[in-house]
């Protein structure tokens, strides 16, 4: 049968810690699911899609959780990632989004200022080449987004380096000792 092999491969996407703790258990539950499932092809396909999607999303969420855990350990003394109802952005993402929004608003304001500073009654006597506002914005936008993309990458690299250094584990130990 194909599914157990697929599921086993998908489990490799999880962080090692999660895999060690739940890996065999998840595979056992999946085996029970396959065993107890409806034999019809549609039901089998539905099960395969649901479980595959569940494992993919679960793996992503676990990696994300570890990343957020690091941030929490660094920003809040003794704090840890509490289980939340539904998805919420981490604080850093909100800050980044605020910065991006601020940048976009500034760019729009700057564009408007340029548009109002250019005289409209130049007429045919003085044919000055005026660069349209949207082209100025479009020219600046890629640079603008490239800057924030780079900033995001650097931020992620720092968090990743912290994770590799095991700082978050130390934070966990000091939390437990309290």
């Amino acid at each position, binding site marked *: 049968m194909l599914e157990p092999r697929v599921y086993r491969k998908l489990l490799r996407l999880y962080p090692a810690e*999660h895999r060690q*703790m*739940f890996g065999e*258990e*998840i595979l*056992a*539950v*999946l085996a*029970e*699911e396959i065993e107890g499932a409806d034999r019809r092809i549609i039901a089998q396909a539905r099960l395969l899609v*649901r*479980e595959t*999607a*569940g*494992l*993919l*999303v*679960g*793996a992503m*969420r*676990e990696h994300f959780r570890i990343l957020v855990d690091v941030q929490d350990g660094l920003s809040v003394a003794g704090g*840890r*990632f*509490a*289980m*939340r*109802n*539904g998805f919420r952005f981490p604080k850093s993402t909100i800050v980044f989004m605020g910065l991006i929004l601020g940048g976009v608003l500034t760019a729009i304001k700057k564009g408007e200022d340029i548009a109002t500073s250019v005289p409209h009654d130049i007429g045919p006597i003085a044919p000055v080449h005026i660069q349209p506002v949207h082209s100025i914005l479009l020219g600046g936008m890629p640079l603008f987004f490239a800057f924030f993309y780079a900033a995001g990458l650097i931020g992620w690299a720092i968090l990743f380096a912290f994770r590799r250094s095991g700082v978050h584990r130390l934070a966990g130990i000091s939390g437990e000792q309290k």
Partner: protein
Amino acid sequence: MESLPLTEPVLLILLSLAGQSQHGYAILKDVERMSNGRVVLSTGTLYGALRRLLEDDWIERFEEEESSRGRQAYRLTSQGRRNLQMEIDRMKHLTRLASMRVALKEI
């Protein structure tokens, strides 16, 4: 600390463990039964939720004694039970309030 209100899947998982301890597959089936097939959890989703509940000490994990395969089972901790009760109280209050408001509007 867990924030209330809980999502429906998490609430159903906790309710599944409120009566008795259960292993993973039994929780999946119980959640499906309790919600009349509306909530069908994938195994990945279930174990993500179980992990968070374990970390927050709402549930605990132990090896089933009567199982020959040494299967892991889960049960509510006293903290988990207390928090579940708080959530139920919150929902009761909300439904009472909703009924009152809707009844007032109908008059």
